[in-house]
Each structure stands twice: as C-alpha cells, then as structure tokens.
C-alpha cells in the first residue's frame, strides 16, 4: 500500500466502539466502525493477515491483528489484556471513541494460494490472525482444494471463537479438528498438543500442493514446524505472522526491524524459510 504524498502517515482516524463480547479470560472482541463512512470503506479493502494501529489517547498506540475477513461486514479486534494500551481498550464502553490507522503490512497472498489445499494450525490466541484467512477461504470456497483446521488450547474454556468453531465442525467444506491440553467441562474431544491431531486415525494431512498456516505461542510453533517438516512440507509452504513491538507501523520507527526486514511493512506474514533467515526468536 502506498500513501499519497500529502497524507500524514501518523494521523489515526476516529472510531466508535459498538459492542464488546467476551471471548475467553482476559480476551475480548471489540466491534467498532470509523466515524467517517468514507474511511470505513477505504479500510475495508484490507487483506487477511494485515494489522492496524489502535490509539488510546493519553495511553498510546499498539498494533493489533485484524480477525475479521474483508468478506464480512463488521470490523472488530480481538484483544488480550497484556499491557497499558490493551488495558485501556478493555475499559472502553460501547459508544466510546478511540482511533485506528491502517491497514498495514503485507497480509497473506491469498490469490497465490488459489487451487491449493489450505492447512490452518493454531494454538491459543494464534487463531485471531488466522480467523481472517479461514473466513476468507470459506467465502471463496471454490477457489481452494481441501481446507483443514487444527486448533488447540489449554482448556476447553480457552478455545477462541466458539460459535465459529461449532460452525466449522459442522460444515462439509472444511475439516476442523480441535484439541485441548487438559480436558474439563465434559470435554469429549482430543486431549494433547496440536501436533497430536496430525497422527489421529482418520486424519490425513495433504502435503503436496498445500500451504500450512501456523500461528500460536513460540513453543507450539517450534513443535508444529518440526511435525510439518517431518511430514514433508517445504519451508516455503509454511507461512506465519510475526509479532513485534511497533510504534509506527509504516517502517520508520525501527522497533520491529529484524534481519533484513521491517516486520510492519515487509511482514508480518513470512514463510518459514524467511523467518529462519531473519534469525531471531519467534
């Protein structure tokens, strides 16, 4: 994306919070829209995997993944409360105003994946950025071959986007496999790490002509990558999105610069082959 010559790249646009829904402990989804309808229309051209900078005036600005798909009507963020900005966002009530700028970053090149199998592997809140791709892929179902989702969390209560999960489990167009580390609340599904799903009887992961999306905590990432490589996936067919401390989102402030990349403009989406070359912890 290219900004016009006169545009102020640091100026966010005012947004109004519509409603807040609880996801899991400390994670909430914030539905919002831009005050200016024109801005809303411009913003809606984002690609899955891009991110936005969210401003809480007086506290600061932080980068947030975009969980909605551009094919959906609503715009929302799903945010875990970890720092001062996210805590301030969690305090907001419907009708309150904040500000957003973006979308930024490269996003997943979904058009390049047309005609391929898609395998989504997510752990915990790693499902947030992948939700956008999954919804996008299902909205363009005829463009892709098989679609598989492998998703795990610590406990059944910590599974994100439960209405979506139930829908995907029932849908004929997608194979959705869930797992938890510790069973509770009458959980009858699989117990174990995400990687254990790959070896379950009846599960067959396509390797040829397949792109694997991996998002989750560092430890899960490392093990899933090992499993995928062992299955025969090539490093350039495994994609992920990186998280870094960021201030500007437009390649100027320097905080997210690793290896030869500024995560905010050259990423956040990288293939595993690229991530390895960048040479920093995930």
């Amino acid at each position: 994306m290219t900004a016009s010559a006169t545009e102020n790249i640091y100026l966010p646009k005012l947004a109004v919070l519509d409603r807040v829904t609880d996801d899991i402990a400390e994670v909430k989804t914030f539905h919002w829209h831009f005050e200016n309808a024109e801005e809303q229309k411009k913003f809606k051209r984002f690609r899955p995997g891009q991110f936005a900078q969210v401003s809480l005036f007086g506290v600061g600005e932080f980068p947030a993944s975009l969980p909605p798909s551009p094919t959906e009507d609503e715009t929302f963020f799903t945010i875990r409360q970890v720092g001062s900005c996210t805590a301030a966002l969690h305090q907001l009530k419907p009708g309150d105003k904040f500000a957003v700028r973006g979308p930024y970053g490269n996003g997943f090149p979904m058009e390049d994946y047309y005609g391929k199998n898609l395998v989504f592997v997510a752990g915990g809140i790693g499902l947030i950025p992948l939700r956008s791709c999954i919804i996008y892929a299902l909205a363009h179902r005829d463009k892709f071959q098989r679609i598989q989702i492998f998703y795990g969390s610590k406990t059944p209560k910590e599974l994100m986007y439960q209405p979506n999960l139930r829908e995907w489990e029932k849908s004929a167009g997608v194979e959705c496999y869930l797992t938890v580390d510790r069973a509770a609340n009458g959980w009858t599904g699989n117990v174990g790490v995400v990687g254990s799903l790959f070896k379950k009887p009846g599960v067959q992961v396509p390797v040829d002509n397949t792109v694997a999306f991996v998002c989750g905590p560092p430890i899960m990432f490392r093990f899933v990558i090992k499993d995928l490589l062992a299955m025969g996936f090539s490093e350039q067919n495994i994609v992920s999105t990186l998280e870094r401390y960021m201030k500007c989102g437009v390649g100027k402030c320097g905080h997210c610069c690793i290896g030869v990349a500024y995560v905010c403009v050259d990423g956040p989406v990288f293939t595993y082959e690229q991530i390895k070359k960048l040479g920093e912890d995930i």
Partner: protein
Amino acid sequence: MFSHPLPPNVPPSPTPAERERRGLGGRGSKFIARIIARTDVLKIVDLLRQQGHEVIAPFCGRGRDSFFDTVTDENRSAVELHLPNPYYPPKRFVLPHIERLLKVRRINGDIHMEPTYTEQKRAIFGIRSCDVAGIYHLDRFYLGRDFRDIYYEKHRKNLFLVNVVCTDPNRDIGEECFCVCADTGPAARDHFDLQLMDLGDEFMAVAGTPAGEAMFTNPIFKKAAEAHVERRRAILDEVRKRFKTTTSWFPATVRYISQGNILEKTWEEIGNRCLECGGCTYVCPACTCFTVSDRQVGPDEIERVRIWDSCALGGFTRMAGGFNPRRAVHDRRNRRFFRKLAHYFIQRELSMACVGCGRCAAVCHGDIGMPSVVEMIRRATAENDKIAPQPI
C-alpha cells in the same frame, strides 16, 4: 515494490542546454564555483538571515567542546569556520529530539485531533560533509519507499545547507574522523545547497542546487579562475592524507556482515563491551529510530510526541507481556551494525547508514564505535582464516 522518489533539494542532472547556459563546459561537473573573500564569508550568514532563515551555525565552547546554535546579532561574530565537529549532530533540525505529532483534545466526549507542523525556514551554516551525507541518508529513509514522513519533509524542504569542507587538519579533523573511508568527505560531492572551502585568503563557493546558485547574484561572490580550482584540488589532496583514523577494512566489513560471516563469538565480544547507554545512537547523524509517547498537557488535552530511541536500550524490542526477542546485549549490538552496514539496506536506501563522522567512537565508553568494531571484525576474521597454504 520499493519506490525511491527523489528527496527535495536534490536537483536533476543538468541538460546539455543547461550546462551550456551555466558555463559548465565538458568537465562533467554540474556545479559552478565562485570566489568569496575571507572577510566576506560571514556575510552569507547575514544574507540567509535577511531571507528569513533561522541560521544555525557552529560555535566553540570550552576545550574541545563545540555546538550548533542559532545565530543572533550578539553571537554572529563568534561563528567558527574551523572547529571540531559538534558531538550533538545537526540531525535535530530535521528530526527533533522530541517532536509533537498530534494535539488531542477531549471536548464533551468528542475527540479532536490536530496534527501540528513546524514550517520554520532554516539554514545550517558550516555543516560538515559527513553530516550532509547524514541528512541525505535521512532523506532516503524518511522520504523514500512507500510512506513519506510529512513531519520530516516539512523540516527538510525549508532547510538550506551551507557545507564547509574540513581542510584544517588540526581543528577540523578529529581523532576519530573516517569520512574518507565512508566516502562522504572531506568535501561532500552533492546534497548541499552551497559548499565553502578555505583556500587561504579566500574561500571557494560551490552551488549544489538552484537555491544555492541564486546566492551568487550577490556581489560578494566573484568569478573563479582555473587556478582556484587547481588550488582546491591540491588542498583536498593534502587533506585526504591527514586523516588519523582510517578504517580501511570498512568495505570488507560490509561484505562480511552482508554474507553473515561474522562469528557469534565476535558479536559477543562486541556486546560484552556495550554499556547500553545509547550514546552512539544519539550522536549518530544517520540513526533514525524513534519511540512515540502520549503525554498529558492539560486537564482534557494530551499531545502525542515522538522521541529519539536507541536500539542499545534493553526495552527497545520488549513487547507488552514481557517477551523480548532480543534478550542478549550482543543481539542488540549485532542489530545496530547489521542495520548500518548490511548491503541489503545500503541498496534499499541507496545510501549507507554510517557516514564516517566518528562520533560513536568518541562517545563510546566501551570503545565499540564503528572504527573499533570494524577493527575487531578484521582481527577475528584474520584469526579464523581457514585458508592456509600447504608446504608441499
């Protein structure tokens, strides 16, 4: 994917007709020269002030200390032409140490955002060639690629640069200067509006832009003769030999860093000497990193400011929640030198993020300024040289 629009003040190469009109002949130079008497040199400061510029010039403090300050009627006669380059670089006139980006007011639940810009006409008189290259690097970084930084641009397009060539080996050239190795000096070849060089009783003035050339209409500037050009060349020849620090392995370091051929052990050795003070980044004319902070300025008013930041500091990459991908000091030092010297970035900006000013070497308590790092890498490479001739 990457666009490199020309920054402001960089003129396109003159057309043949333009060369003819400016009397450039076939020498392949796009610059025209004039001669100005030594006693008239500070009149350039007066002219710039009359044109409405805030003129910044270097002054001497005590001992080695020197600093850039605004020229006033009172201090005008104290402006120095030959002095050690101030440690606090003139970068702050295009990228202020602290700069307000937005003013935000809350009125009856509504939020009013107002970007604030500074459009002060400024001239830096007496900027050294290394710092001219530094500003050019900032131009490439902030104005090139996909996003233009409008705050930077507003400072930059109002800035007039009068470069003074370092010709006095005792006053101008410091212990740590290595512009000859970074290829930025002692005489800048471009990116200034006006360049002055001391020829003894008189100075040669060279115009680098139409704005600089426009100054030549003033009668203090006299026609230059071929003998002046010859004298300029002879002085430069001599000055190039007077550098104390020569970082002769600089290009090789660029290659080794770009190819990832530097051992982790060497980075650790460099990192172990870093005191994490951030001094190197604050005195660097080509460092670009900043952080952004909101601060309360009234009961219902905040301002969003950007502040110089440093990759040497531990919290530079620490995310909310505490995860820090760069935990070890040497990871961060490695980062600084990689970002400055990796071929990928030199190509991306068409300019190198080290201009050879030597400030980092002068301020570093651990002696890991750029020249020392280059030397440490050279030594480590020599020790690890795997090619040994076989006496067969």
